[in-house]
């Protein structure tokens, strides 16, 4: 059964460093998403991406964040200068089509720890 994969499973970085979180969405899916969950808090939407551009983003997704689909398989989230409060579990998701009618399939997450 096809699944969304994410690497690494755990990333530790120093405050101020850049990190890139990687995701491989399901191959025939066209919409891609990033969510995050700070420990003890809710899963929060960050951004959705379609046709090589951002289609929606939340207030959390500020200039420190960027997303990219560098090739035909990977979808990345970059944090330019990490802060302590960026420590969270980051989930990638993909869906075949857009709209709420299409199920979003989630990856297992990357736990980012900023020291």
């Amino acid at each position, binding site marked *: 059964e096809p699944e969304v994969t994410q690497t690494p499973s755990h990333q530790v970085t120093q405050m101020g460093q850049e990190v890139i979180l990687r995701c491989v969405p399901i191959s025939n899916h066209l919409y891609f998403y990033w969510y995050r969950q700070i420990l003890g808090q809710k899963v929060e939407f960050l951004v959705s991406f379609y046709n090589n551009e951002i289609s929606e983003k939340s207030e959390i997704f500020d200039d420190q964040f960027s997303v990219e689909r560098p090739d035909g398989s990977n979808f990345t989230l970059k944090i330019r200068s990490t802060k302590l409060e960026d420590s969270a579990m980051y989930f990638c*998701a993909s869906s075949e089509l857009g709209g709420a009618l299409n199920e979003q*399939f989630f990856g297992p997450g990357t736990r980012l720890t900023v020291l």
Partner: protein
Amino acid sequence: AQSVTQLDSQVPVFEEAPVELRCNYSSSVSVYLFWYVQYPNQGLQLLLKYLSGSTLVESINGFEAEFNKSQTSFHLRKPSVHISDTAEYFCAVSDGDTGRRALTFGSGTRLQVQP
């Protein structure tokens, strides 16, 4: 703006007992409703969803949820739980009017099934 409230952070229950996980939402527009389940070290998996039509929706593994518009609730129930149902359960909503794809999640309920 939408929000989701899951009233119970943890629900311990004995095997074969019934369980109800509560979810209430607020929204100024119509919504689609979802329950996701997360098993340890795995991503979020869609359990069931309400888009339209019958207010009672069922999953393949015996869970059901009922959309109650007047009470703005979408509680998840199972008449007899198994050890394997131990997981974290997330209620989520998305905008039913504009078709925005972002999911708004509750804080999750950890179901702990004891023998």
